[in-house]
């Protein structure tokens, strides 16, 4: 997973899987990287072939963290299979999903 900052946004990318083994790590590292003035976390899921419910849980945790700070979490370019899981669990209504392509 890669992390970089752009203005008031923390961008997470290079995520191939978001599962029980790594989602807690992603959540904790992202939280640790939060700094004053940061309003948005963008999670790039364009390389992500697999997300399970623990991955979804980590995304919700970060979403709640950002809401508490008056910010937001966005999902960027989810792959079709991930998009399908988001829709199945109706989380597409919770996250802002951004398609850049």
């Amino acid at each position: 997973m890669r992390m970089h900052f752009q203005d008031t946004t923390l961008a997470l990318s290079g995520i191939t899987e978001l599962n029980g083994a790594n989602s807690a790590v992603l959540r904790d590292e992202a939280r640790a990287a939060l700094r004053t003035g940061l309003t948005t976390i963008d999670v790039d899921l364009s390389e992500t072939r697999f997300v399970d419910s623990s991955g979804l849980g980590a995304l919700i945790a970060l979403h709640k963290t950002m809401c508490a700070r008056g910010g937001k979490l966005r999902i960027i370019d989810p792959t079709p299979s991930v998009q399908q899981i988001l829709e199945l669990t109706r989380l597409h209504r919770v996250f802002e999903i951004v398609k850049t392509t």
Partner: protein
Amino acid sequence: MSSTPPIFGGSCTLELTCDLQAVAGSCGTARDVFARADLTVAETDAWELVLSEAANNAVRYCRPEATDLAIRVDLLVTNEWVEVRVNDHTAGLDWPAEGELPPDDSESGRGIFLIQNLTDESRYLRGSGGNCLVLRKRRSPRAAAAPRDEGEELRDTRHTLDLMTEELASSYESLSAIFRFTAELQGGVDVEDFIPRWLGELLAITESDWFVLRLSDTATRRLRVVASSAKDWSSGPIPLEASSHPSDFVEVKAASHHHDVWFDAATPLSPTDPLAGLARGGCGFAHPLFAEDALVGVLSIGRRDGQRQFQAGQVNVIQTFGDFLGLQVRNTQLLEEQVRSQVNTRDLEIASNLQRALLPERLPSVARATLCGYYRSAREIGGDYYDALPMGDGDMLLVVADVMGKGLPAALFAFMFRSLVRARRDLASRPAEFLAWLNQNLFQELDRAEMFITAQIAFLDSGRGEIRVANAGHPPMLFASPSGKVTEITAGGPPLGILAAATFDETTQACTGARALLFTDGLIEARDPEGVLLGLDPIKSQLAIAARSGETCEATHSRLVGLLHAFEKGSPPADDTAFIVIVGKETSEHG
């Protein structure tokens, strides 16, 4: 994680360590298996997610003491179906019929929803040693339409598919058998009759040769054989405590260690093991049955051919059947206990009401005699009964009887006896004939119930100043003359219900100024705190003193009650006690 080589084409067993990393790794392996079995990408994606959810739960909620046990995952792909079984060692959960999504901001709780939405069927089988989540989904039509080429490769594939279908059919069979049996049990089938049939079917499904089922007797802490397929084998109960026998009996080991104990040529049974005769040269295992941590019993199952080891799927079926059986047995035991306690309470209540209704509220008095009665019921309801019926002209019928046995049956027979006595009081003046008639009319019922009644009938003939007595196996009537001479009147005859055509003797005694005592055996069998019986002699002595003193009937009654209490010193009566004191008068009050 370790994985066994696929048994055939699309089947594989994965063994995961209890670790989320292992789950992620196994999902990759499963993808390969699914891809080789030609599932579509969408199907593979969905199964990967389902497996991940199921296995993550098995890891997260694993019981702390079971974290070193492998989590077994069975994958089975046929040309029509995919089945995945995840065996967990968690405390188990109530699998919902339809899992729901949690609130949108909840960080967990979507696993079951996903599993159910991505499969056609999900069943969660709970067992004492572990649970099994069985997941199935029909494959998409692309794969189901198999090409009809007869090339060598395809023939192999077809053979593989046949094998897989066979295995699937056997697991189908076991599941459907469980559901069928459940339905039967709900219909109230007798478990005793049902167990051998069920286990017989289990032998067929799992290709086993023999079984032995022992149930645990909590009172004696022993395992008792309740069903066995081996006709020429038997074994007495074996104690669960190891002190009384070598502790290497596999059934005891399985029960005390809460896990399966295997035996085969490499790990043979001890020669003294009760199962040694059955297991010789073969293989098998003892599986303990628990219901909510309480030991229900042990199911042992085996094959005669030690080379034919059980396959994982067969072991799974045996364990699942066994655990289910354990629960059913426990449920039945609980139900029986409940019914029995209800019946007992109700039974005693009815019997006690009946018994109260049997006894005359107040004994009548006649011109030539006064009467006092005593009745004391023991803790259990018995069948003691006495009655006194004035017959006109100062005559009186006296009856005392004791139905063998206790509880409701005894009280019912006492009631029947009373009704017959009252129905034929015209026979009162001929006691021997009366007893014969009563015997004839009660014989069939008493004989069928294997019960009997001892009884004594006395007719107080006022006109003649005499008492006529007949006896059916009852303790003697005591008769004390005014001088204090006490006679036992033992006019003979068998108890009612023993001989269909019994006849009875009759004795006549002058009763003017005398006193008599009719009683049931509870009086002479009263016990002191050391358990010594009162016997007849102290009663006779007291009766003699009473006769010489010429005291009232009430005084004699009190004297005898005093004797009883002084002797027993508060020890509780074992049996009902009844007696009637009759004191004849010198002359009629009416002249």
